[in-house]
């Protein structure tokens, strides 16, 4: 630990510089990345390609927004792979059982899947808060349970959703972009509303900014935490619905890769792992960075596996950048 004494003035300006940098760096990175890929390959800038990026990003954006609320509180949720799989499979089973097309009662499968997501998130929150298990471990274990549950439900099979109305999420386009992009945009606005205009949203920041203070001000921190995990579960289920709409298949593997993608997106977007800083717009930028990198590398002809390494390095850099070294003594 290098603790250096600096004069008050330089410290203030350094803090300002750091704050401005941390605030605008993600957007800057996104723009630089776009410019770089556009220079390497002009086709990158086409509407078709942007549509491709946004289609891939929509389900991940929902999942990342869910986990944003948790990270704002200074906790973490690693259960998304299991939750997404269970929601996707539940939705597919109910959808087919209730008629298999949106024109019938099968639309009920949508709120049902969201309810299942909320229930899983609620259990996750209960395990974390009531058993006092650190959230990363409680949610990781719940994620394993979720993936296992999805496996038991499907027996390893894939369930096809071939309803044209539901697949319209992908096939129907407005202004060049499929409907699922607009659905994701709508839920982004809902998340933004929750974050800025509701008591729950303010409470997330209060818990993340300083739990002692929040408790001392009479806030029921445990309740906020459980509600946060429940809300995250709902957004995970929306991500699952969009993922099924995109591929037309629900299976145990539907949830694969969401964990690392969404955590990377949130952190790279500038939401601090320590809580209290950032929000859903940061997450939008972060998700776009992650998917622009993924898409851009394919467009300029790099193999897909490079993306994992680049994201791994990015997430470490992002956490380092967003960490105020003077305020912590050690991490576990």
């Amino acid at each position: 630990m290098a603790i250096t004494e600096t004069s008050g003035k330089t410290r203030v300006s350094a803090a300002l510089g750091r704050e401005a940098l941390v605030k605008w760096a993600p957007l800057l990175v996104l723009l630089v990345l776009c410019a770089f890929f556009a220079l390497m390959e002009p086709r990158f800038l086409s509407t078709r390609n942007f549509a491709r990026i946004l289609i891939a990003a929509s389900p991940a954006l929902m999942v990342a927004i869910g986990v944003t609320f948790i990270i704002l509180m200074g906790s973490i949720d690693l259960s998304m792979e299991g939750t997404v799989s269970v929601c996707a499979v539940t939705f597919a089973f109910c959808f087919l059982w209730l008629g298999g097309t949106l024109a019938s009662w099968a639309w009920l499968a949508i709120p049902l899947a969201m309810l299942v997501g909320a229930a899983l998130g609620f259990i996750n929150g209960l395990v974390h808060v009531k058993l006092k298990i650190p959230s990363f471990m409680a949610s990781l274990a719940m994620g394993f349970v979720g993936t296992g549950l999805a496996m038991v439900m499907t027996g390893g099979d894939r369930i096809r959703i071939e309803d044209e109305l539901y697949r319209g999420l992908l096939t129907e386009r407005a202004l060049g972009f499929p409907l699922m992009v607009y659905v994701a945009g709508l839920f982004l606005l809902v998340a933004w509303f929750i974050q800025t205009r509701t008591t729950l949203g303010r409470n997330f920041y209060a818990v993340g900014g300083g739990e002692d203070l929040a408790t001392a001000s009479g806030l029921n921190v445990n309740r906020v935490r459980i509600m946060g995990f429940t809300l995250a579960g709902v957004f995970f289920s929306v991500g699952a619905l969009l993922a099924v709409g995109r591929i037309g298949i629900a299976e145990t593997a539907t949830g694969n890769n969401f964990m690392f993608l969404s955590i990377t997106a949130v952190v790279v977007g500038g939401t601090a792992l320590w809580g209290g800083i950032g929000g859903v717009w940061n997450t939008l930028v972060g998700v776009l960075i992650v998917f622009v990198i993924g898409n851009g590398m394919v467009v300029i002809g790099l193999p897909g596996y490079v993306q994992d390494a680049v994201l791994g390095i990015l997430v470490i850099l992002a956490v380092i950048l967003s960490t105020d070294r003077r305020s912590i003594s050690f991490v576990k």
Partner: protein
Amino acid sequence: MSLETLKPYFPWITLGALVLLVGALNPSFLNPASLVSVVADIVPLFIMALGMTFAIYIGGIDLSVQQVANLVTVVATVYLAQFGVFVAVICVLAGFAIGAVSGWVTTRQFVPSFVATLAMGFIALSGARFLSGERALSMNAEARDASFGWMFGTTAGVPHELVIAGILLALAWFLQTRTTFGRALKAVGAGELAAVSSGLNVDRIKILAFALSGTFAAIAGLMFSVKLSGGDANLANGFLILAIVAVLVGGTPLTGGVGGVINTLVGTLIVVVIRTAMVYLEVDATMQQMIFGIILIVAIAMTIDRSKMRIVK
């Protein structure tokens, strides 16, 4: 005798009860020959859990072990023909290096260990997919037998895997209990700030602990690769949860400072017995992950030292 004084013996009691239970259900389980083969089968997992113990003992976690093992299976398969038995050195060095970088990132750069190791794991996965060309590779059978044939087979009825596991356990136990490094590990796990104040070079100790975790994961990957005679970027998938369960069920809590490598031996045996019991009870293979997830939650809830965590995040 209160519950707290009994706590260190819980893993042993659990293991004994489980063995008796499964033995009662199916007496053939207690047949020594079948016991030995069941245990020999689990050696790679045990070695991985042994390494993970060091990361958890200091209060951190290593989520990269599975990917390190994946990478090593590919490295071992690709370079076996070229380097023969010395490929083991490359594998171990790779594991050590990845672990050391994870440790450096968490201690010097203040990135929480679960994020740092998760990210390092994906970097390792990327390397595995690059080296393997995203295909499942297989080893040349002759080269494998010439270089690593000694890993398998039996001497006087004892499978060589068990001997290797025993040597590594003895080594880890010696490190933990008979060296200053081991005492320092305990100090860091019991209270990091106190360890810093007493003048220990905590950063170096933590980096070494993660490096050891990577090294053991690499050895596990190597054994796995030789056993299955091949390498693949997904070969060791599914091992992470079992390794964490083995460490925690054995009685090394997530908060660190107590427990150790002997506990991990007990924990791994518990995992083995549970898995065998599932086969006897005809529990569907697809349910295993769910059941181990629930066991994991119960194990953490029972072992964790809440007095160390003022705020549970």
